[in-house]
């Protein structure tokens, strides 16, 4: 997909991401297609979460621009930005549920806070979304009373509660067993199929990537190594891409010197 494609839900141009003076990613020109699942890939510490936080407006870009459905974020007013945020749903790495609220209150939170929805209606909507992720029977449970996988699913239900156009999922399978992780992948595919939502999944888990990705953005070396259909990215010659997909470790050169040189009976 080219950067000028008008079917892009999100597009960045010359984006530089980082924290203060620390630049993590440079010259990021990516395009996230509508109603598809895009996986943002890369090794640990390559800047996946930083890119996600910048796209969400939680960190200001150090340079470059982000376009959301053709509208540049930098040119948006605070009200427009708030309106744009209402069109996205996010699952954070640790689910980020409000620990003092029950699962249904967590899911209904945006409705109750932003729209002034009647509590009964909000509860019913929350129940529907929790049923969608298989948690219809756990409305009154606190986050501390359910498993890690269930918290993640509740986080997805909360992200979906206002029918977002774009759903961001930060490491949805992290810390989950393979079966639960696969069930979560299946659920994400189901959401895309049934709701037509654009899904952006930040992950480094190969099984999830192969199960989910329509489109992939491979990060590494402080920038974008490759992007496009998963098969295209996998076939890329860029350094680091092959190693990532074939799970090859970088061989550390053996360090010499030190005490070994003082051994007299070698």
């Amino acid at each position: 997909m080219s950067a000028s494609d008008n079917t892009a839900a999100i597009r960045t141009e010359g984006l530089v991401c980082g924290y203060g003076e620390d630049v993590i990613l440079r010259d990021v020109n990516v395009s996230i297609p509508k109603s598809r699942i895009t996986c943002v890939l890369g090794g640990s510490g390559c800047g996946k979460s930083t890119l996600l936080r910048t796209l969400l407006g939680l960190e200001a870009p150090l340079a470059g621009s982000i376009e959301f459905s053709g509208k540049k974020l930098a040119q948006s007013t605070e009200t427009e930005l708030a309106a744009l945020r209402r069109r996205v749903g996010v699952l954070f790495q640790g689910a980020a549920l409000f620990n003092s609220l029950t699962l249904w209150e967590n899911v209904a939170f945006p409705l109750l806070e932003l729209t002034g929805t009647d509590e009964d209606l909000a509860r019913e909507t929350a129940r529907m979304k929790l049923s969608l992720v298989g948690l219809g029977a756990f409305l009154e449970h606190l986050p501390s009373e359910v498993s890690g996988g269930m918290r993640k699913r509740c986080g997805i239900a909360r992200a979906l509660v206002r029918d977002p156009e774009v759903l961001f999922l930060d490491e949805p399978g992290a810390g989950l067993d393979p079966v639960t992780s696969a069930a979560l992948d299946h659920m994400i595919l189901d959401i895309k199929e049934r709701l037509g939502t654009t899904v952006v999944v930040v992950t480094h888990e190969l099984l999830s990537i192969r199960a989910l990705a329509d489109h992939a953005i491979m990060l590494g070396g402080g920038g974008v190594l490759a992007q496009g259909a998963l098969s295209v990215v996998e076939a890329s010659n860029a350094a680091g891409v092959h190693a990532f997909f074939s799970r090859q470790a970088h061989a550390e050169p053996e360090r010499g010197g030190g005490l070994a040189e003082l051994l007299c009976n070698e």
Partner: protein
Amino acid sequence: MKVGKGSGKNPRGAVIVCGMEVGTTCTHTAEGQWTLVPCAQDLAEGPSGSSLASAVPEEARGLVEVSLGAEIKLAAISVAVLRLTVDRLTKRGLKVRIRAANAEQRRLIKLFGAEPEATLESPRPRGLERLLQGVHEIKNAAIECAWLLSRTLGQSVVHTLRPRARDDQRLLGEVAAMGMGAVPLIALIASMLGMILALQAAPILRMWGQELRVADLVGLSMTKEIGPLLTAILLAGRSGSALAAELGTMKLNDEIDAMTVMGVDPIATLVTPRMRAMLLALPLLTLMGDVLGICGGLVIASVVLDVAVIQYIHQTLQEVHLADIMHGLVKSALFAMVIVTTAAWQGLSTKGGAAGIGRHTTRSVVYSILWIIVVDATYTWIETVINLR
């Protein structure tokens, strides 16, 4: 640790007691070579209070061979002890070599004893740069606090003028948690302080035959100064710390970010209700503290100084004016702003895990008390200057 100096008869030089090696030894061979034989315990833990290198006498020159006994099983810490020993001996101008007894010892020395990588050091500012950074941080903190205060006060006005059932519900909950919970504590401390004030003043007042003046002293002290200050400091420790810890935990759990990306304003949802509750609860608690402090003074006046209850009340009403009470209440409203702003600022800037929550919560209380005193002093100074003109 025993240090032995041999003449080459016992090149291994180990001190053996009942068939067991008990200490590190260093011997001088006829060939002019020094042999350091570390015992297993010294290699595992390092000799207590000194290094293995100190076993090599000061007069040693030339080559020192560290000879490892076959019975010694090396671990990472043993190799670290060896490395430090080699470094210290090299600094003394000695040449060092290591004689391993078996392949396993050689393998471990190669594995852990390789030349260390250069440590990546985070750039730490020094001198003027550090000073400028400090000034910059203070400026940023002042801007952030001013922004938080203006935002929460503005939102408090909006929420009061355009009430929403959910906000009012939250406000009542906060007032109950913040205010009602603090009632017994403030009641006890304020009444005791009233008594203490009266007791301290009693001997002097009796000496001058001015027993009735105890009502002036307790009444004015409590309403103008002690009541607002005491209540504010107690609430800074009780409710301010709770708010800072709650916000800090939410920040570390990404809950604040989750709210932001939902389009829910965390300040309006989490801080403004606390500001409104504190602005309501603190003056009310101060008023209660004033009354109970005066009552405490009344008990002492009547029991110790034989002042009639009606006389004490009459004197209090005559000397404590509405303006004095109002000054106290205005102060307590200012203190409420200080407590919530400081707690929110510290809570929302929390970083560094569980220890960070503790650190920022403590700072929230310390800074709140500091600023309460500064605001109190400034207010009293302005009030006094105006009154004197």
